[in-house]
């Protein structure tokens, strides 16, 4: 898909995120907006083996949102792809909705793994990649990790195993926005240097701009060509990307916009068109 169309889709997904979180009155817009372009690229270009009409096909590519609190970006992307109606985004987090605060694989078509408790999703992605290798299947497995999330020790247990097993059908994408709930990751408990860490765990490390589709395209292509080891794409992103007052502000990690803020955010995203 050409970049112009990808940008249009990403903008729609951003509007979906803001609308869903505003409607819910709660949720996580910051880390959802930072990864909107990554999910756009994955679902509209990179993951060819997915079909909204057949979400459980055993041959499909798989995506695990290990940073499960970014559920709004996953829901908005799945809706945009046609897994379920876009208007359902308005039911996010509501009592009778299937769109839970964190993704539930048994409730939402297209969600490959229930996540939310940080650190756990990545291990399940590793298990999926291992199954693919054992069965000599061609599908690929993608996991999106938060740069705060990688403070969880389980991430490194999973990384050690993935590197050891040479799971080259696995791609970890780090949403490297530098912020977590309590502030800057480098102030809270610095996960850096992230590249050296993944390298030390026998990953092939690739750098990308999380908001540049050419950069993402090159990164995922390099990952596909990398044999004998898993890849980690360190995707430098801006938390809250696309909504001026949310950008680079940890305060928007887990807060919904009020009506006024919602109008402003939507107006900015409309202008992007």
């Amino acid at each position: 898909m050409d970049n112009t169309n990808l940008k249009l889709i990403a903008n729609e997904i951003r509007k979906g995120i803001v609308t869903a979180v505003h409607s819910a009155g709660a949720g996580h817009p910051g880390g959802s907006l930072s990864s909107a372009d990554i999910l756009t690229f994955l679902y509209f270009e990179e993951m060819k083996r997915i079909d909204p009409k057949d979400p459980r096909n055993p041959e499909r590519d798989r995506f695990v949102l290990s940073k499960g609190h970014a559920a709004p970006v996953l829901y908005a992307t799945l809706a945009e792809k046609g897994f379920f109606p876009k208007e359902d985004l308005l039911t996010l987090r509501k009592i009778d909705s299937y769109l839970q605060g964190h993704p539930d694989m048994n409730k939402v078509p297209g969600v490959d793994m229930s996540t939310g408790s940080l650190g756990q999703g990545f291990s399940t992605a590793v298990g999926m990649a291992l199954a693919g290798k054992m069965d000599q299947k061609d599908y690929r497995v993608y996991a999106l990790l938060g740069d705060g999330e990688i403070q969880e020790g389980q991430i490194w247990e999973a990384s050690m195993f993935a590197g050891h097993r040479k799971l080259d059908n696995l791609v970890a994408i780090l949403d490297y926005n530098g912020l977590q709930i309590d502030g800057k990751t480098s102030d809270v408990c610095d996960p850096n240097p992230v590249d050296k860490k993944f390298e030390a765990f026998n990953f092939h490390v690739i750098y990308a701009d999380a908001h540049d589709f050419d950069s993402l395209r090159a990164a995922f292509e390099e990952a596909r060509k990398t044999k004998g080891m898993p890849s980690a794409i360190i995707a430098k992103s801006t938390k809250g990307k696309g909504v001026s007052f949310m950008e680079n502000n940890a305060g928007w990690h887990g807060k919904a916009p009020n009506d006024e803020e919602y109008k402003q955010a939507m107006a900015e995203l409309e202008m992007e068109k």
Partner: protein
Amino acid sequence: MKIDLSGNTKIATRDSYGNALVEIGKEHPELVVLDADLAGATKTGVFKKAFPERHIDCGIAEADMMGIAAGLACCGKIPFASTFAMFAAGRAYEQVRNSIAHSELNVKVAATHAGITVGEDGATHQCLEDIALMRVIPGMTVLSPADDVEAKAAIWAAFEYEGPVYIRLGRLAVPVIYDPQEYKFEIGKGVLLKEGTDLTIIATGVEVYESLVAAQRLEEEGISAEVINIHTIKPLDQELIAASVSKTGKAVTVEEHSLIGGLYGAVCETLAQCCPAKVLGIGIHDCFGHSGAAKKLLQEYQLDAEGIYKQIKGWL
């Protein structure tokens, strides 16, 4: 039903586990076995020898092992994740809860070295809380077999059952009481081992044999004890327990587990609902264990036949 109380043949249920895995592995390519650097102790080593490509050693990383098992289950495998009860139910509790049970994935958690009979390794390795931790998780089936025959049958049943299962297994070699030709295992169905009229002894795991021997001694003194083996802690066979206790009027539970939240807790919850009765809990009284030979520890905590007999006599 034929019950052998001679104690002539003794097998640890962890050995039954390894052997059952090999049997299942021969027929079912979807079976995969995970371990966390304890294949020698959990006895998955015998499966590894038979099917090396389907044995996955995750290293000393139990939390990750549970996640990998969940991921494998997402892709059609039937994983048995194996480690000591302390690390399966304890360390990896949240992974079992969130990655496996909440996701409703078909993962079996096989936990060996449960209870005080771990012996010499002492308190850090003697998990006395796993039944409580696992049975409180929605949708989790909890099995606690008594001997080799029942353990093998339980492993097969867990394999054939669709959904998460926790299986509590032991390190200590325990008497084989069942006849493998005759014994039928069904998840959720307790086994009436001995009929009686004065009280109902409800036991699980290694305590089933000890309870049967204790009941024999009581019988010699004119006290008629009914003995029920509860190999499925969850779902609990409420019908069997209620029918027996409404007949005898008294219940005794026996387990090598904390009385808080274990079999005692589960039975009391049931009886409180359907037929209130006095219940004596025989188990671990809110304390940690310590090092020592398993047999000596069973004696010390009054969990051998003698201790069970004495506690019941004192209570009646």
